[in-house]
């Protein structure tokens, strides 16, 4: 079972060096314990472009698809047996990166 751990924050400021160090430790642990699938940090909403090709002619729009005070700044995709395991990892991940984390299952 895979879960998306979305890192939510109100600024796209990069993680501090302390936060980076804690994230590295957490990532190493995810790999060592077999939970690691993928992870990454994202550019801020200002760097986003929305593409809509539903009408046959692609439409590009500058900016995020929805303006909000808090937004996705990064994510982990993890392998976990169930939600309890995923929540425990998200708890440690939130502490490591010092940001909120939303947990959602892949279907």
């Amino acid at each position, binding site marked *: 079972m895979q879960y998306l751990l979305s890192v939510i924050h109100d600024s796209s400021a990069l993680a501090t060096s302390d936060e980076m160090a804690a994230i590295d430790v957490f990532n190493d642990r995810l790999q060592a314990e077999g939970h690691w699938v993928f992870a990454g940090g994202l550019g801020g909403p200002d760097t986003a472009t929305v593409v809509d090709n539903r009408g046959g002619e692609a439409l590009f729009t500058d900016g995020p698809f929805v303006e909000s005070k808090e937004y996705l700044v990064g994510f982990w995709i993890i392998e976990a*047996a*169930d*939600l*309890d395991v995923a*929540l425990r990892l998200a708890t440690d991940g939130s502490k490591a990166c010092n940001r909120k984390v939303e*947990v*959602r*299952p892949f*279907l």
Partner: protein
Amino acid sequence: MSDVSEAITRAHHEEWARVVAVLTRRFGDLDIAEEAAAEAFAVAVERWPADGVPPNPGGWLTTTAHRRAVDRIRRESKRDDKQKEARVLYGDDPPEPVDVFDGAVEDAIEDERLRLIFTCCHPALAPETRVALTLRMVGGLTVPEIARAFLVQETAMGRRITRAKAKIKAARIPYRVPSAEDLPVRVSGVLAVLFLIFNEGYLATGPDTGPVRPGLTAEAIRLTRLIRALMPDDGEVAGLLALMLLIESRRTARVSASGELVALDQQDRGAWDAALIAEGHRLVRERLASGVAPGRYQILAAVNAVHTSARDVRDTDWSQVVALYDQLVRLDPSPIVALNRAIAVAELDGPEVALAAVDRLEGKLAGYHAYHVTRADLLRRLGRSGQSRAAYDRAVELAGNTAETAYLIRRRDQLG
């Protein structure tokens, strides 16, 4: 009530959670388990009057529900995929033969019910959802009953429960007793749900129901007894059960014939339920004898044991009550605990000392009706009628319970 309908009611009380729990384990799906359990009880209502009550109602209901669940899965898998049927029916854990209720199987089923409770009270579900799901899956209340209990539209309550079941399935909220590491927090989550159900029954928050709702207090006590049977060594489980019993023992004395709340010092103590008090006291003594440091429910149970030990309100050992609240403040330094401590301090050190303590809580409790009720009473005792009246006015505005509102209005209007 006829013998058969009595047997059905009893089976519903005793077997509902087992049937749902065992089927959830077998089919890995709360929704299938719930529907099949409901159908099995409907079949019982239809057949038992003619065929007689089976010698083992629990086994009969489980077998009937199992067949219904298999029928449903066959129907659905004919519609969509055959694989699902194979996975559900022949999954990792082959179903145990639970139709034979020997001791070992009985233990396994107790364990199943515990899994069910922990799943319904999972912290990834909203608190009001935990309450609703617990009443439905463990308590066996119907969706309309739960909707009425919480003054929510039936359709909205139905959606809440459906959404919760879908989340449990999609996000894979595990169906198991939590690991030892998580257990204390998770047990206290379950107890919080049960206490919420109890409190809503003991002092209904809204004006649109009876002021006291014995159906809810009885259900909360029944479920807490179940947890107690499943976790007999947990001090807080025993504490919560004792607390509920000792509060429940005063229920009939608590509302007057005219529908007004009766304060503890005004209650007819002869109307208290002696059997519930004896059981509550026994549990409190058992916890004291254990020598293990008590948690909040055990301390609150001890406070209630002091009250229920006094045959006359003048015999109340207030120094003991204050000492217990001191202990509770150390565990839980919340303003509500501080408020309750101040109420006991008023009896020990006088209303002036208590009022000073209460006034310090204004910043945190200004929107809480009990804060104003307490101030109004203390100001009244100090002869400060004008201020007392203003505090009663505020308390009446904030109180939702009809019996409490009636009581507060009378007290206000009696001020000189």
